[in-house]
């Protein structure tokens, strides 16, 4: 039989990010770094959260972690400059003859 670690009383260490929820949806959010003004609204509203602001060429731009992005589209809906687009994942684009 497999052995398991049993934390007493089902108490759990913090912040296990084992569940990669990035494969849940059919879409992913993509940031158009050219358009992005680094305002951070998407970061604030992302429920996962899986968007952060990163430095790029001296500017702040949003970056989506597709390991966790469920493709809800909230970020795209709140972006003031339409810099985020929702795109169907490649796997769903493939057509079988």
């Amino acid at each position: 039989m497999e052995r398991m670690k049993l934390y007493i009383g089902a108490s759990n260490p913090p912040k296990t990010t084992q569940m990669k929820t990035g494969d849940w949806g059919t879409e992913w959010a993509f940031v158009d770094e050219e358009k992005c003004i680094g305002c951070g609204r998407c970061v604030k509203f992302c429920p996962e959260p899986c968007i952060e602001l990163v430095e790029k060429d001296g500017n702040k731009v949003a970056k989506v972690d597709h390991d966790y992005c469920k493709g809800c589209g909230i970020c795209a809906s709140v972006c003031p400059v339409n810099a985020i687009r929702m795109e169907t994942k490649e796997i769903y684009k493939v057509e079988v003859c």
Partner: protein
Amino acid sequence: MSYFGPGHGACPGCGFPIAVKAVLEALEGKAFVVNPTGCLEIVSSMYNRNVWGVPYIHSLFENAAAVAAGIEAALRALNRKHEGHVVVFAGDGATADIGFGMVSGAFDRNHDILYICYDNEAYQNTGNQQSALTPPGARTTTTPVGKRQPGKIGKKKDMVSIAVAHGIPYVASASVGYPNDLKRKVKRAVEFEGAKYIHVHAPCVTGWGIDGKQTVEVARLAVETGLYPLVEFEHGKLVRVMKIKEKKPVEEYLKAQRRFRHLFKHPEGRKIIEELQRIADENIKRYNLLQQ
């Protein structure tokens, strides 16, 4: 580093994670989170998949306020108050229905806790059954729409007024449509010693019948129609409200959600829409919500 997630199992576009994030960020992670049974608990605290970066406890469905009171008492007794605030995240059922007595008890004793009710207006964890905070006319699985019934009959319990009536120092309403406002309210709340209550409107994509990407838009519509006023009470006095820039008709809010769609066809529907509009108008008057 985030204090909540990623890796939780909430539906794509779920409203309450936005609130949880905002609250914990406002407190800079100095929080003991108490969470009764419900959606938030189920999506965040599965054994081996805890997504909380702060101390967290789930006990039962109906006792979060009491558990929080106990933690607060223990921190006082052990001289550990400086470690953080005791924060409850509870759904509408856990707050206004099954746990109502214990919310009242904790408020009555004025424990130094911050109680956040994320209100998604039904028992969404068990699949959208009506609670005391389900609004009139909403279709739920226990208030289905049929010949004799146009969805929920009856009112949405006014938890903000009930909280104010307890004489606790700070009561506010907020919405996941406005996370900055929520953050500010949390920071203001914890300046008070004693029980604080913030009621946060949080859309549920499955229960309300909306798309994930509509969450913020629908949450804002609730505010912009006056159906869900954002108000703030300090020591029982109304001190601030969020003004409505451009008042929208409730129909716009209702049409965006599948749970209200029948109101536009059902013989009783018109009456309910009018009643909801009346409630919205009354809120606007009562709290003087329109920008002059």
